[in-house]
């Protein structure tokens, strides 16, 4: 933290609020391109609603595919955000301070994206609200035994809680911005958002307390959410899905992919906004180490799945896993193994760990690998289950690809706006870790 000594409170304010200056041409072009992609995605979805789900690549017996893959992928991404902001907060891990705001934003946006897919993949999306327990004249309720309903509640709760967490964490910083910006529209907006924050002691008192509770809630929540998502599969009887290892396996996987995504996002931001002073190599190294850990857990899961399939002597399980390794989708399977189990091994070397470029590239690999992990679990298992008479292959369609692209655009749209509207780094918390200015220090 040597250069950080140069940081003063006012420099912190200045540097971070500087990020909110008028957007550059680069930003605008990026943003417009993003909207274009989003529009295409939207078109694909509407086309699908109008013609029927047949325009997607589904075919008997593969009834879930890319859409659910995306759902799990995005929910996974979301998790590391909460991990960094909540869990590490409880552990008082200092290296989180400078990156947790970005990852928290990532969480909220990722959940917003993930939440779309259960609706997109419905056969009759217009009646998705039937999944909510609301009183109706038909006197019908929902089936609380269905894992899909667990999803509805888990993801819903997760979105609410992480958004609150996100917003509350920002109040003091927004206040800081409020006190700096002059021009009228922004002034008003930030004034409203800051809820009249003054930074008085009683505010801080309740604030820290509440923040602690949010963290305390978010921590088990984040674990529960991805467990529930994993139960969508584990609770069914499909060979390759029906496995007790899924919850920890998925949670680890989620954090794994999430951390990778954080790196993917933070590296460019750090570069563009010259935040080297705030986001240090140490931060990245911390994340890299956690990536190694989670990568090992995931790899372990891969191995155990195979072992159990063989050891249980269950022909369906064994058939399924041999098919994964050797069947029609073997390529995807090995891509997954390479990206998730092999590539991260490089991080054992400090040189690699501390090399931003290397980290960035590795993180991209991991993102791809984790997407394919979900694809493999979902599609391969379905295409090759109990009944040989029902086996069939799946091919992706352009509509699905369009919607997927759209979902990324949707995510980055929020992110681009966030970078320009809200403080991407936590002002007050960075001050916490700076040495407080004292008269003695001055005197010396």
């Amino acid at each position: 933290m040597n250069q950080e000594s140069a940081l003063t409170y006012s420099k912190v304010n200045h540097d971070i609020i500087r990020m909110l200056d008028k957007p550059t041409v680069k930003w605008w072009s990026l943003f417009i391109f993003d909207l274009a992609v989003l529009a295409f995605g939207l078109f694909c979805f509407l086309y699908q609603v109008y013609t029927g789900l047949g325009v997607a690549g589904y075919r008997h017996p593969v009834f879930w595919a890319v859409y659910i893959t995306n759902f799990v992928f995005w929910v996974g991404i979301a998790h590391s955000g909460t991990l960094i902001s909540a869990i590490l907060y409880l552990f008082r891990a200092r290296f989180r301070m400078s990156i947790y705001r970005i990852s928290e934003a990532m969480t909220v946006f990722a959940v917003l994206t993930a939440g779309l897919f259960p609706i997109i993949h419905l056969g009759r999306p217009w009646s998705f609200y039937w999944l909510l327990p609301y009183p109706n004249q038909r006197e019908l309720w929902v089936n609380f035994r269905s894992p899909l309903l667990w999803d509805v509640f888990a993801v819903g709760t997760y979105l609410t809680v992480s958004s609150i967490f996100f917003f509350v964490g920002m109040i003091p910083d927004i206040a800081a911005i409020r006190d700096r910006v002059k021009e009228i529209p922004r002034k008003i907006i930030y004034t409203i958002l800051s809820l009249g924050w003054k930074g008085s002691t009683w505010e801080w008192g309740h604030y820290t307390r509440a923040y602690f509770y949010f963290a305390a809630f978010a921590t088990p929540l984040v674990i529960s959410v991805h467990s529930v998502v994993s139960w969508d599969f584990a609770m069914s009887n499909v060979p390759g899905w029906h496995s007790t290892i899924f919850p920890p396996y998925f949670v680890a996987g989620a954090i794994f992919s999430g951390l990778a995504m954080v790196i993917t996002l933070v590296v460019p931001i750090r570069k563009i906004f010259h935040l080297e002073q705030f986001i240090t190599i140490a931060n990245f190294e911390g994340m890299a180490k956690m990536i190694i850990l989670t990568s090992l857990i995931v790899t372990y899961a891969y191995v155990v799945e195979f072992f159990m399939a063989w050891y249980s002597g269950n022909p369906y399980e064994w058939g399924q896993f041999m098919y994964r390794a050797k069947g029609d989708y073997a390529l995807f399977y090995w891509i997954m193994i390479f990206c998730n189990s092999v590539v991260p091994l490089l991080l054992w070397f400090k040189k690699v760990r501390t090399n931003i470029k290397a980290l960035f590239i590795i993180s991209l690999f991991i993102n791809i690998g984790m997407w394919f992990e979900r694809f493999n679990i979902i599609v391969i298992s379905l295409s090759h289950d109990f009944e040989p008479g029902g086996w069939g292959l799946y091919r992706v369609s352009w509509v699905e690809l369009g919607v997927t692209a759209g979902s990324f655009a949707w995510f980055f749209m929020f992110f681009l706006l966030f970078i320009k509207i809200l403080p991407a780094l936590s002002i007050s918390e960075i001050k916490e870790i700076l040495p407080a200015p004292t008269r003695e220090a001055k005197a010396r």
Partner: protein
Amino acid sequence: MSEIKKGGSTKPVLSKGEGLITGGIKRRDFLKILGVVGGTAAITGGCSPEPVEKIIPYVIPPDTIIPGIPKWYASTCMECPAGCGILVKNREGRAIKIEGNPLSPINSGGTCARGQAALQGLYNPDRIGGPHTRNSSGRLEPTAWDEAESILVEKIKEIRSKGNGNKIVFLTNNISGSLNRLIDDWVNALGGRHIVYETFSHEPLKEANRIAFGINKIPTYNIEKTKYLLSFGADMLETWLSPVQYARKFSEMHGYKNKSMGKFVQVEPRLSLTGVSADEWIAIRPGTEAFLALGIANAILSEGAASVTSGEADKLNRLVKDYKPDVVSLITEVPTETITRIAKEFVESRPSLALGGGAANTSSKSTETLVAINILNYIAGNVGDTVNFGDTLTLSNANSFREIASLVDSMSKSEVELLLIYNVNPSFTLPKTLRFDEALKKVPFVVSFSSFMDETTEQANLVLPDHTTLEKWGDYTHQDSVYGVIQPIMDPVFNTKSIGDVILSISKKIEGLESQFSSNTFYDYLRDSWRGIQTRLAPDKDFEAFWTDKVERGGIYREIAPIQVRLSQEVSTVSFSEPKFEGEGAIYFMAYPSYRYYDGRGANKPWLQELPDAITTAVWDTWVEINPETARKIGVREGDFLSIESPYGNITTQAYIYKGIRPDTIAVPIGLGHKSYGRYAQNRGVNPIEILPVLTDEASGGFAWLSTKVNVSKTGKREQLVKTQDSTSQEGRGIAQAITLKELESGVHEQHELGEKFDMYPPQKYIKHRWGMSIDLSKCIGCGACVTACYAENNIPVVGKGQVAKRREMSWIRIERFYHEDNGFDIRFIPMLCQHCGNAPCEPVCPVYATYHNHEGLNAMIYNRCVGTRYCSNNCTYKVRRFNWFTYNWPEPLNWQLNPDVSVRTKGVMEKCTFCVQRIRFGEDRARDEGRNVRDGEIIPACAQACPTKVIVFGDLKDGESTVSHLAKDERGYRVLQEVNTQPAITYLKKVTWDKA
């Protein structure tokens, strides 16, 4: 006319108005109350907007229709010459379902897929809407009936004035009964000829019988009595003579009951669907069946095991002496010991039966082959026992191919001035080398009575479309013991006219004929001819009573006992030699009749197109079956386009690698490759007949289908062969299980624990019934009748080739086929449908309770609640759920067939087998009204009803006395994938196999 809403029709139907007020058959009038057909209308979301709907009452109520209550009418199926008895369901004036008539001795309740699909002939969107005549510009244009008829009258007058009455030819298929008589008399009165053309008319059978026994007829076979069935390529379960009848009889003979079953050996170069049901397949060299038969006869005679007089014995001995098994073995490539073994079994297990003469195996020496087979039957004492010459087929009256050929010849010599064509499509079913089309051009005036625009009709000068069978009066006789009545189920859908009525009405306008053909309508004519029958069979009866009774029962059914026949002298004159094959190619070319399209007439029915071929599971197209060995030689994979070249042309179609065919043979199904014949048939697949030579069976003049050797080469083009099942192996997962007869007899075999074993959860509570099913794999022949019946009953949409390629076919029940290569090549079929599990994986995962377990053990599926998460299907162990990827439509008027009691599903909802819940409810309601309990066997789902071999038994598992609950405890019983503990309501009974030597 009135517009009827969704599922109804807006098509104006001529004479409907009159039909309503004046005479006509009122009970068959169309319904005018809207909304009652609503049942067929699409389901929508939760609260649907309420459209302004019209309700339109009858002007005059038809005497017997009560809206909402079905009526059944007996009739006769005319989809093939077998003429099965059928019952047709009429709802609100529309025929909506065909079922076999249990009274008919031919099919006794069962049907085949083709019979089920007759409805799609009736409602076919490509039917000819009315009479057409060729205009100056040479195009067919619509005209009025009297207009059209007068044209024909003028033509006839003109011809007769020239004294060329003898140049009038009436070409029909084998229409027996009154219509046949009418046409005969009529065309004779004009001085012309009536020629009966059947694509598969089995002339060699007749001829061989004449030679062997002096009876120039095709007998019926009492397969049900036999203990040992030896078939030389007779595809009796597909198209041969009377498939449904023989399927039924076969299942009686071959189905496992009280520790025994008959044995069935099939001798043919290609393992046909029939062969699949055999216990032993002998892949004989094409065309050499005669020698095998003789070899067997030789073995029997040399054993002295033959039941013949000594005189006959010597005569026969002289005939067969050269054909010692070892000699025969060299010719036929059948091992000697196999021959002797079969010979032994054949005489020892009596009564036995040897069959032959399947179209696909008809070579230029078929008559001789069949004589040899006759000899076999004779020496085994089957003639007069299992071979019944008392009850012969009307098919015997069909003209031979040779006569057809000479007709074509005289046509090309312009010796025919007027050709009237009815129910045949020669330009499709005759080989190109016969040049029928050219000959047809030489005929100045051609009249077609076809209801469909087929290849022949397209070239006609005048088209007078006939009703389909379901719209008209008539009668049909397939075998002497049965007079079937054909009665109209509903008013004509289109502006068509019964051929009988046409003939009668034009006779009125031709001097000399009016007196002879005085009846006003064919209906009267029919009744008159039945008066004849009545005076013959029941002289004491009053005709009206007799008539109504027969119409209600669907016809006259008699028992005709076999007659005793002796061997004729002529036998000894027969000499045996190998058949002739044209072409220098290395590979035998086999064109076999398809059990889905027969001779191609089924090709315009989407249900049949989408019914997967049992062996390949291919749909909507033609393929060529080729042995893996041969395929390896020329480096062919499935889906490769192969060019098959005979001296008379070549066809190109996709390869299917099939172990069930000899390496020196390839086979292509007949039926597709139409140039016209409507949107479903047109330009789809290839027609193997095109490349066949004009070669006849020398003795009988029948067409020799197996007469070509071809060259096969890769074209390099390759495409996915569209079929519904990719994997051929069941990966040892015991989906379709089998057990050997020995094991059953000894009783030492692991029995499956079928009782509900320990469970975390309390057992299901069933209030009154628990509906269940048992499926006997020892009887299933894979004919697919159940599949088509399910399509008809449950408004299942046809999705077309492109969608099936994506495995999106919607069938609720599918016939899975698994290949076994452990000892010999063998295929097993298993009908797979919703198992209505007691512990269904699909239920708990649905977030909105769209599927759940009801108090009768049904795994309910509520379409209008479904939001389409598709989780249920992912979790379904048997993958029997289907998803509506799109909203599927039925082109007008196919939608008239939709069953009003079943919702039509729209895009985005899951669907699956409901055990025909609408039928269950109907049965329960009736029972309640009559204040009794539901009787066992009273409620029958469509699949079980249609099954010709009665594989499927449905009933109440809660009632311990019901058949199904007994079968559920059967020693052969098992449940598919029961280790997953889904506790299915369906019990499968293992297939029983003879221990392979």
